[in-house]
């Protein structure tokens, strides 16, 4: 995890951002914050594979945050501490064990939030939770603000429980939940990429992509950089808004896999080879689409063709986002995932 901090010398503003997770979305948030160039960042280990180690790591983070200097800064005119949770290894096919492990890590972070709240009584505390529209509303179309979550798999239950536990926290803690649709993007090899970069990467190498869905499955695709930019905007400029807010982040335009395939072929100028597979464990055929009127007014997603072009440029140029504490491999062919 990464800790960003900013304190101006005139004693007016003090802000700490704790970013848990540096995957596809976490890296995008990291990049967006880093572009501001006014935050210093430090890497801290946080293990979510081993709960005991995770607790020790959380204790280390707490110790750092409660150093005399930082606590003294919390009395600045504007003092804020924001937690961003976009961590976890659970995907759509997560098992019950993965779900439980991730909930333990999440619980450790919520405990840390409570302790920080006690130590920084003068600071405003925010939690930004990255949730999933797909997990919560799988099989629902035109999801809107009042849609009722009906998770169908462990991943969806995980997101549902995470949201509920967040809402149980002290009312003084501001809670922001981002329900994302199908996120795609490229931040370097070895990371989860989503359908579109997989098709681009495999298409450029004339490799077959395996789809656990059908060609007419509808999804709402959103670019990782848009999400990173939006959350950064909320971290920096949405400090005074209500204590609880839920944002549906998507494009508002459903796209079938056939449509995506066509766009990717157009952008890369090559044929895409697809193999469709259906198994009970991996089946992923239900439609998930968003009502465009439910999207936040200050949210402007990149259109799908421009997004595909950006991802293609990223893959071709071998652009790798450098995040502290992450040793990413150079572009190694075998590390690319050929399935979705």
């Amino acid at each position: 995890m990464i800790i960003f901090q900013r304190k101006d010398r005139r004693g007016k503003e003090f802000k700490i951002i704790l970013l848990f997770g540096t995957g596809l979305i976490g890296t995008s948030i990291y990049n967006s914050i880093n572009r501001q160039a006014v935050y210093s960042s430090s890497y801290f280990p946080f293990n979510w594979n081993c709960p005991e180690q995770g607790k020790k790591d959380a204790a280390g983070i707490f110790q750092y945050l409660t150093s005399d200097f930082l606590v003294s800064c919390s009395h600045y005119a504007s003092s804020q501490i924001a937690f961003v949770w976009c961590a976890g290894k659970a995907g759509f096919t997560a098992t019950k064990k993965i779900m439980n492990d991730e909930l333990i890590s999440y619980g450790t972070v919520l405990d840390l939030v409570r302790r920080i709240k006690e130590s920084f009584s003068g600071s405003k505390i925010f939690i930004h939770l990255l949730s999933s529209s797909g997990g919560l509303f799988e099989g629902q179309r035109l999801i809107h603000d009042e849609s009722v979550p009906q998770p169908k798999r462990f991943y969806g239950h995980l997101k549902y429980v995470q949201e509920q536990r967040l809402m149980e926290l002290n009312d003084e803690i501001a809670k922001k939940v981002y329900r994302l649709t199908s996120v795609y993007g490229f931040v370097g090899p070895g990371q989860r990429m989503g359908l579109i970069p997989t098709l681009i990467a495999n298409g450029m190498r004339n490799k077959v992509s395996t789809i656990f869905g059908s060609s007419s499955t509808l999804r709402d695709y959103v670019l990782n950089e848009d999400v990173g930019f939006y959350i950064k905007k909320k971290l920096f400029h949405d400090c005074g808004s209500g204590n609880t807010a839920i944002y549906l982040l998507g494009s508002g335009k459903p796209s079938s896999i056939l449509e995506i395939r066509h766009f990717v072929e157009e952008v890369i100028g090559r044929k895409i080879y697809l193999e469709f597979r259906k198994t009970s464990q991996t089946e992923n055929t239900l439609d998930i689409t968003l009502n465009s009127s439910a999207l936040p007014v200050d949210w402007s997603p990149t259109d799908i063709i421009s997004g595909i072009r950006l991802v293609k440029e990223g893959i071709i140029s071998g652009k790798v986002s450098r995040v502290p504490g992450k040793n990413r491999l150079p572009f190694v062919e075998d590390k690319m995932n050929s399935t979705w």
Partner: protein
Amino acid sequence: MAGLHHANIGIMNKIAITTVTPVYSGRNFLPELIVKIEQVRDRWRNTQAPLELIEAIFVNDASEDGSLPVLYEIQKTRPWVNVINLSRNFGQHQATIAGILHSSGDWVVTMDEDLQHDPSHIDTLLESAVKSDMDIIYANPEQSVHENPLRDWTSRAFKGLVSYATGNPHVREFNSFRLIRGSIARASGSVCSHGTYFDVALCWFSSRISSVKLPLKDVRFVESGKSGYTMRKLFSHARRMIVSSETKIVRFGAAIGFFAMFVAVVVGAKILFNKLFYPESIPVEGWTSLFLALMFFSGLLAILSGIVLEYISVILLHIQGKPTFFVVDRLTDRFLLDYYQDKKKK
């Protein structure tokens, strides 16, 4: 409806319908049109029908008559209305495709803005589709659309001509009031380029196409005498239809060439026979052989041109996205069929 278990209707327990309406000059018609669409939506809800009109998509094709503010006004009180605003005027087909590609419904209904197509007929289209196991149903007029025999005849003759030239029997049924299975509508829309004729692309994905006769009336033409289709537009439609289709006329040309070659060879053999054994039977020398040589090589050129054009046609269709295959799920149709049969019994 207790038996509903299909993947995509598991949660909503309803079959989702989307309407798509391209808008160019519909300011005066839109308020009435949305009321009619809403009546259908409410009727399905009130009668517990297994159908839900989940969205009405209006695509503003750079209208200049102030349709957009009217649409935004309509959208304010109806969250199920989705307004898409195109950057410039792209034309009716492109606007329809844009709307289809924004849709989520199991079935998509496309209709004009000018009340020519009554939304209350959506039920008739749906019933016809599930009863006859179809993927696409066109509404065709049961009587004169324009109340002008010449205009109606021109329209029919034009479609007949294009149908013959392209070898596509469904061209006669093409109409902008259509019901399309959602997955097929979106698949066709996604492969269409600017030059592709949308209805021809639909034929690439399904041959289960039919039509029902409905009382359609071009109110705008009847009242003002003005039609949205000028002669230029008709020719443009014909051009796109032919370019998007496998052109039967090319094969016809090649067949004529083959016939000319065959005649030239047979007659040439006879002339040669006469020349060798009955030379006195040829009064004027040179003319026949010249004519036969011309006929033979013209035929050969026609065949070769036909082959080249056939190659180009295959490449063009490949570029335009004609699929090798497409998988479709018709499982939910039986629930609709049960519903319409129960309704009839009552």
